[in-house]
């Protein structure tokens, strides 16, 4: 990799200051960024590690119906600390990558990267979470901006993700056998008055909400409610591991399974 400056501030304020220099990038757990740097596909002038900022760590309950996850909380920590409050989220976090990846990788890093096959974006979108940054609060529906893109600005740090806790929820991940990212993944979250369904791994536009399923499931939260639903293969990803038609089929199958598991 190319060399860079390195800083490891202990407060968000210091981190924001450090990130103001040209070409600086935040470094979360590095589980995607470091391999990218090794391939010389990116050349930041400075990396600002967020792992020493205690304000960005941990999971805590906020009122009765919301949990707040610090931006630099590792997947392993979410898997352990969210399990009582939001088991579907904990389960998702406990199946990202592998154990060694989970002990470094962070929720903020994953969301900022917005890999079209990553798991967390599906949870955030289906939960109608709010991404709190060093500058503002962003609704999940506004945050993702296509493959590997978000509305985050240069130097903007994800400090917290606020998840409303659904009545019932489940994430179904169908593994891409090599990377073990989601070949397709579906997160279903049932709230008192609505259901949200978010799909990852399938679309060329990145994570998205399957609105037809949401309305069908809002009326009848059962797998048969989806029998007549249609998933179009248009703009689905085509690669070595599956055609658009296959991914479209998986979306429906996994959504049904998530509904069964959540019920």
């Amino acid at each position, binding site marked *: 990799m190319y060399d860079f400056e390195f800083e490891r501030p202990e407060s968000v304020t210091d981190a924001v200051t450090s990130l103001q220099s040209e070409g600086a990038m935040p470094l979360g757990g590095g589980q995607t960024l470091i391999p990218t740097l090794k391939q010389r596909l990116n050349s930041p002038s400075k990396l600002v590690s967020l792992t020493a900022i205690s304000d960005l760590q941990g999971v805590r309950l906020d009122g009765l119906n919301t949990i707040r996850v610090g931006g630099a909380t590792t997947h392993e920590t979410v898997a352990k600390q969210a399990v009582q409050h939001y088991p579907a989220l904990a389960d998702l976090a406990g199946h990202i990558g592998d154990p060694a990846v989970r002990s470094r990788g962070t929720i903020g890093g994953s969301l900022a990267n917005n890999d079209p096959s990553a798991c967390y974006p599906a949870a955030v979108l289906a939960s109608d979470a709010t991404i709190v940054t060093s500058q503002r609060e962003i609704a999940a529906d506004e945050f993702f901006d296509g493959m590997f893109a978000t509305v985050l600005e240069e130097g903007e740090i994800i400090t917290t993700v606020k998840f409303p806790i659904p009545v019932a929820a489940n994430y179904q991940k169908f593994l891409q056998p090599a*990377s073990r990212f989601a070949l397709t993944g579906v997160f279903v979250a049932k709230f008192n008055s609505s259901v949200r369904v978010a799909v990852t791994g399938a679309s060329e536009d990145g994570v998205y909400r399957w609105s037809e399923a949401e309305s069908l499931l809002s009326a009848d939260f059962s797998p048969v409610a989806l029998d007549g639903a249609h998933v179009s293969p248009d703009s689905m990803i085509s690669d070595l*591991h599956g055609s658009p038609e296959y991914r479209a*089929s*998986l979306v429906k199958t996994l959504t049904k399974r998530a509904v069964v598991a959540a019920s």
Partner: protein
Amino acid sequence: MPKDSGIGVSQKRREDVRFLTGAGNYTDDINVRGQTHVHFLRSEVAHGRIDGIDTSAAAAMAGVVRVFTGADFEGVGGLPCGWQVTDRDNNPMQEPPHPILAQAKVRHVGDPIAAVVAETYEQARDAAEAIKVDITELPAIVNMQSALAEGSDKVHDDLTSNLCFDWCLGETDDAKVQAAFDEAAHVTTLELVNQRLVANPMEPRVAVGDYNRASDEHTLYTTSQNPHVIRLLMCAFVLGLPEHKVRVVAPDVGGGFGTKIFHYAEEAFCTFAAKECNRPVKWTASRTESFLSDAQGRDHVTKIELALDSSNNFTAIRTNTLANLGAYLSTFSSSVPTWLHGTLMAGNYKTPVIQVNVKAVFTNTVPVDAYRGAGRPEATFQLERAIDTAARELGLDPITLRRQNFITEFPYATPVALEYDTGNYHGTMDRLEAVADIGGFAARRAASEASGKLRGLGINCYIEACGIAPSNIVGMLGARAGLYDAATVRVNATGSISVLVGAHSHGQGHETVFPQVVADMIGIDESQVEIVHGDSAKIPFGMGTYGSRSLAVCGSAMVRATEKIINKAKKIAAHLLEASEADIELKDGVFSVAGTDKSVAWGDVTLTAYVPHNFPLEDLEPGLEETSFYDPANFTFPAGAYACEVEVDPETGQVSIERFCAADDFGNIVNPMIVDGQVHGGIGQGIGQALLENCAYDQDGQLVSGSFMDYAMPRADDVPFYAVDHSSQTPCTHNPLGVKGCGEAGAIGSPPAVVNAVIDGLHSANHGVKHIDMPVTPARVWEAMQG
């Protein structure tokens, strides 16, 4: 009391202690004082003409020692091919040059164009980015059919076409073969792909070149399965160096699976550059480079036809295969789709007429060569898929159909050039039926169906030719090397023994197994015997480890050398005991005179050999050291029967392996634990091929699955525990240990079992799917189910 040492005992591996404590010594762990690092600038296009290379900016960068291009290797030889195949008209194959660094053209993504030697790896890489290469991209030749089409662009401009050779084995009279098909009661035809694989030993390749100007000696540390072969090829064909001035060391090697047999450009480069720069030069492949530069495996496209008479006897087999060689001829590439593949087309069956046709094709892809099994998995897959298809078409039980056609009398001369010395195919099938509980399958299928899954059972038989190989035969077939092996048994004065062997251990456990044999023969403790391997300066000229040959060939040399030692030691003992040599017996490390209580211990005899005060000097030389070169009389023929049960998720197409059973006949077994481990590993790779692994190129010749992010390696949760059984044994008739070899069996026997099981599962739900090409991914299964 059961034996607790020697032949037949599952001794724990002595080498494990260093590997388990981080004390192994792999090539990348070696750093030589004053070492530099090389980074290769590799082609990003599959096919292109090099119009110019400007290295001036790179050469001026920080830390750069020197920049090399193809021009520096003009007059230096290219990488040789070790096997000359002759075509059906007895013409030699087309054999293009394979330069160390590209000359005039690049022919695959990853073809090295230039090399930067610098003080640090990162500096070398920085400078490589500053090299300006002017390349005119040419159309990539990727598909084999198109490569053979009239008027195709050529990978090698100086060749007449992209056809390396058109080869035929078995019955060459087409009319006679056709007649057999015309007379058949049933013909099964199957078109299938044996997909390209990447061997991916967990240790990437590494080479460290060192040159001593004072002594004019080269040392190459390299990740090789056969250091002597590398030394010979590099000295005689590439660099023109005297062999006695070159030492090749292959220390601990982190897996090979075939891809570390071959002589690679990076090895020759580091050796060459170390002298040119007068500095040690080290290269460590990244995994990305491994994907672009390690010889890959398989890649056959085949049509197979199987003829049966009205009693369901096999009457004829005809195959037409296109074999992809990639851009250049790797060291043993030409032998794989021919002599290691065509000769196995008889399988375990008595089929009177067999014709094997193979066209080998150059394409703009990474070279293809031997990967675990090498030709034999390709042969087995076609044959066993065809038999399974025939059974389905005819409504026959797949086991019964196989049993009916088994070869039962030995020796058996096949129509495709081999003579099987021994075997018992009913014996292994009997064991399989017991171990796999075939009778309980119906109940297991019902249980799977109750949980919404389809369940299939797949059977497979295999035979392989191992113990490679009789030198005179392979010489006749085009090999440019002998395939004997060698061992020196060096007894020390105090009775301990160093055995210097030509075989190389990179996971096979030789350091444990070989001493079991020697210690057993003499009757001493195994801890008194040590194996030395992997260093051309220490060991006799041996051909290394591949083709499941180490124990059958090198082990036989070791036995012969040990016999010489015992014979000489008996003479010494006879002298010490003042008895006739004929009366001397050796048991438990003690020489005694038959029928008396006179004896002398092993250690006293060995001491006498080196302190020959009371020694028959007029009849015997002092010392106790013997070498044997063993050239096998025939191949060995391990065989077996495998069963796989899968569950298929009908909604997603996901296949899971529920049970996997292997019954193998490896002849005699020295260490059952290690044999089991070899079979487990082979099955793991075979399941990988069947379900997961796919080395795929796009139409531009870019490797689509060029990292572990897209090339799916089997993981622990992709596989079950395996049941393996080796109790059906027919010892090899022509080597002293009666052993056959076990390294490749699992990788040969498992892919057809898995695919047969998936097809069986789909048929159970009335999906009339004839075949799914490997890897049988969920998407492919799902698509097949859509009709």
